[in-house]
């Protein structure tokens, strides 16, 4: 009984169950507002896709479906560990809860790492929003080696990782058990971002190499030789010398697909400028989704700290459960975003 009153906080609730139900209703209503909020962007997507289906087929080829699939798997796994965390909280398994929350946090970070590679690769290629979109057929600077955008994006995570490492070392030396757990989870989270970045760069390079060999195979006509040369440069990846390729086209990335006669060619779609519209919608939808991941990570850290204090049990697990619902909703939105953006043909 003493334990019961201890968990019943604040005291204006009749029972732990009432306390849980009140919060649960609140979070479901919040999720409704989230669904309606995202529906505006899905509406824009549906409207412009129906008006310009050819732009969607053209632009979607610049999205790396492998990276998208990897990120889908990462998010699904984080949903699993989050659901498992709720179970641990309900069963009063302190260690299990801390581990599950830490893995969820790490997965979120890994997701953002892969996302950073995806974004910076597009910025390198000039795939910006409407009005800033750069033609993929006109000559442009070649992008080889490590993206400068990516390096700049990695500065803050690198600083955070170094800080977490120092904090973890401090906690170890001073033998503070709870601080060690928190700092360790944070260090793993920061390192997971770089795991995501390396995974992303690896997959991106591999698919560029695959495109290059494809270009080699189809390099019969004279017009293809330049594309093949550029693809070779791209295939060399990090080792390539930037000075050798001053201005070449990106056209090696554009697969010659079988088209209906009379339909606009990729060049026409590109020159009409509508591809920027696709990327506006792409950045908006995935960017707002990524902001939700970031916000979720903030809440996860708070929950992790509370979990190390052993504050959750079978009568009081609301915060874990509510956050789980939010996290699954973010996963749910990605479940729709992935096929709608990455898998268009």
């Amino acid at each position, binding site marked *: 009984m003493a334990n*019961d009153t201890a968990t019943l906080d604040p005291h204006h609730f009749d*029972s*732990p*169950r009432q306390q849980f139900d009140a919060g*649960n*209703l609140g979070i*479901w209503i919040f999720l*409704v507002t989230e*669904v*309606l909020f995202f*529906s505006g962007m899905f*509406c824009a997507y*549906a*409207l412009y896709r129906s*008006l310009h289906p050819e732009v969607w087929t053209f632009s979607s080829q610049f999205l790396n*479906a492998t990276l998208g*699939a990897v990120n*889908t*798997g990462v998010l*699904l796994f984080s*949903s*699993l560990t989050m*659901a*498992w965390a*709720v*179970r641990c909280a*309900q069963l009063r398994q302190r260690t299990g809860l801390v581990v599950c929350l830490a893995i969820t946090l790490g997965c979120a970070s890994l997701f953002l790492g892969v996302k950073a590679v995806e974004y910076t690769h597009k910025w390198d290629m*000039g795939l910006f929003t*409407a*009005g800033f*979109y*750069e*033609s993929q057929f*006109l*000559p*442009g*600077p070649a992008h080889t080696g490590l993206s400068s955008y990516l390096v700049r994006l990695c500065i803050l995570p690198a600083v955070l990782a170094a800080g977490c490492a120092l904090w973890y070392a401090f906690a170890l030396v001073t033998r503070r058990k709870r601080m060690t757990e928190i700092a360790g989870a944070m260090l793993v989270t920061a390192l997971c971002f770089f795991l995501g970045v390396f995974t992303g760069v690896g997959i991106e390079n591999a698919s560029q190499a695959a495109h290059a060999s494809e270009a080699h195979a189809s390099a019969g006509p004279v017009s293809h030789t330049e594309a093949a040369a550029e693809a070779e440069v791209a295939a060399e990846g990090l080792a390539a010398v930037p000075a050798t390729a001053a*201005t070449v086209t990106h056209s090696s990335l554009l697969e010659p697909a079988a088209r209906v006669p009379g339909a606009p060619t990729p060049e026409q779609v590109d*020159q*009409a*400028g*509508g*591809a*920027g519209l696709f990327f506006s919608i792409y950045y908006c939808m995935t960017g707002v989704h990524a902001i939700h991941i970031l916000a979720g990570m903030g809440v996860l850290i708070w929950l992790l700290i509370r979990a190390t204090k052993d504050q959750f049990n*079978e*009568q009081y*697990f609301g915060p874990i459960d509510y956050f*789980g*619902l939010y996290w*699954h909703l973010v*996963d*749910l939105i990605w*479940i*729709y975003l*992935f*096929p*709608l953006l990455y*898998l*268009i*043909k």
Partner: protein
Amino acid sequence: MSDHAAHSHSHELENFAHPAPIWQLLLVFVALVGLTIATVFQSTLELGNMELILALIIATIKAVLVMLFFMHMLHDKPLNVIIFISAFVFVALFIGFTMMDAHAYRDSVELKNVDSPRPAAAAHE
């Protein structure tokens, strides 16, 4: 009387937690990954207009799995489920009505000032 007291006491400490069995969580995860592979595979097929419909059907099956098991809607109060599902009714109305006359206001939603793409930055001499 003591029976009633015991009942109210058990009500006070009612066990309302429904810890999901581990096998169920793992099974749902495996199903979700399987459906992700299915949707990637489906995108490599030549299906024309069916492609989008099939992709949305697979995504919806995944969403239902997440909602029923990860978001434990099966154990939740009906009121919460109704509230959440009602959101999708309004989403359907919103997108449905927008799409119904999309071509009627086509001119007003086209981006007219960004007609041609910029050449890549370094192409200017």
